[in-house]
């Protein structure tokens, strides 16, 4: 057992856990943030994607103890005060979800993608999201949602 402290969404959670505890389990069970899902359990599906220092990572393939000293952002960080993030609004508007299970991972990857490339082509969006699976196969609307968010976020940036 080790005592570890993780900075998740700006808040520190400290807990005694086994070294083998995966980041996704720490987020769900110690920090009690269940927006981050567990899907394939084999680093294939991307539903557990969170941002580690701004980069998307599969939290089922990182030990929690490795994340000490880093900034973790989960889907719960997106709507402070209940105001939806442009990516959340876009998934809503474009019906970018069917069952919704993959959505948190899709949104976290999309945010990092738009950070890297604020104006991606459809091809670049599909490539950027290729590590996230939607088993409802609702990809077309997911791509539309990312396109809407890209427009909204660049307009927002221009206004700022």
């Amino acid at each position: 057992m080790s005592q570890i402290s993780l900075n998740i969404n700006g808040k520190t959670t400290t807990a005694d856990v086994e070294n083998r505890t995966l980041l996704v389990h720490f987020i769900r069970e110690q920090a009690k943030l269940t927006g981050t899902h567990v899907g394939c359990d084999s680093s294939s599906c991307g539903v557990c994607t969170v941002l580690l220092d701004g980069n998307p990572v599969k939290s089922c393939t990182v030990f929690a103890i490795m994340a000490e000293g880093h900034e973790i952002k989960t889907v719960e960080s997106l709507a402070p005060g209940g105001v939806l993030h442009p990516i959340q609004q876009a998934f809503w508007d474009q019906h970018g979800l069917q069952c919704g299970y993959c959505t948190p991972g899709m949104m976290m990857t999309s945010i990092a993608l738009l950070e890297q490339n604020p104006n991606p082509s459809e091809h670049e969006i599909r490539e950027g999201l290729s590590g996230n699976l939607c088993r409802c196969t609702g990809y077309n609307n997911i791509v539309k949602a990312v396109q809407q968010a890209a427009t909204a976020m660049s307009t927002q940036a221009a206004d700022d």
Partner: protein
Amino acid sequence: MFPANFEYVRSHSTDEAFAALQQHGSEARVLAGGQSLIPAMRYRLARPAVLVDINPIKELSYLHEKDGFLVIGATTRDAALEFDQNILARYSLITAVSRVVADPIVRHMGTVVGSICHNDPSGDWTATALASRATMIVRGKDGTREISIDDFLVDSFTTAIEEGEMAIEVRIPIPDAHTQGSYQKIERKVGDYATCAAAVQLSMNVDGTIRQAGVAITAVGHIAMRVTAAEAMLVGQRPSLELCKAAAAEAPKIASPNADQRGSAEYKKDMARVLVGRGLQESLLRLGVSL
């Protein structure tokens, strides 16, 4: 699926990591990006008693050119190469492979050196290192030593790294203006193991003959393999479609793939031929050589 528990050692310097590896010997494994090791531990295919985490070692995170080589440190992520302007401009083989290793998310954690050290039979970086004639730098008891990639890759999941040693960096010769490469990969879906893949790099003489050829295939044997016969056939020759076809036909002769859900052994062997052929042709196209 939970990995077996382990003792965790966080290292902040190469000296610290090395000391921990010396202390724990064969019980210890280096934890770099973990994108192969952690899944292997979850499936209980790997069960190290001690993990020496090298991720916090800032001095091992670098990507630059030095003394004729591109040098990539042990904690440099795949994504660092994918988005590097110098690599995009001058390293066609590295650029191509950096876009098809695993998936875009995994590339933010996975490392080039870690992938070569893992030496998976389906590794993309191992084949790339062979085709580009890379050298591994390994730290041992008597200081660091250089190991050519051919000697480094010993067998499936086995390298020339000995107990208590650790890989520090990989060095890839800087391609000159007359060098181009290509990476060809068939995969069922992004992030899956390759069904078959081929790494190719060609360097030309001013008289239009081939000066150096690097040809390697992966996922079609117990280890990524250099297609020595193809390289020998190409060097010194003037490129032609016939030459490309003849060189590509050498690939299936050394391939020994297993049939699995990705295809039959016959199919994979033939794809080794097809992908080497395509890699040669794409490299020549990039060199401005018309066939």
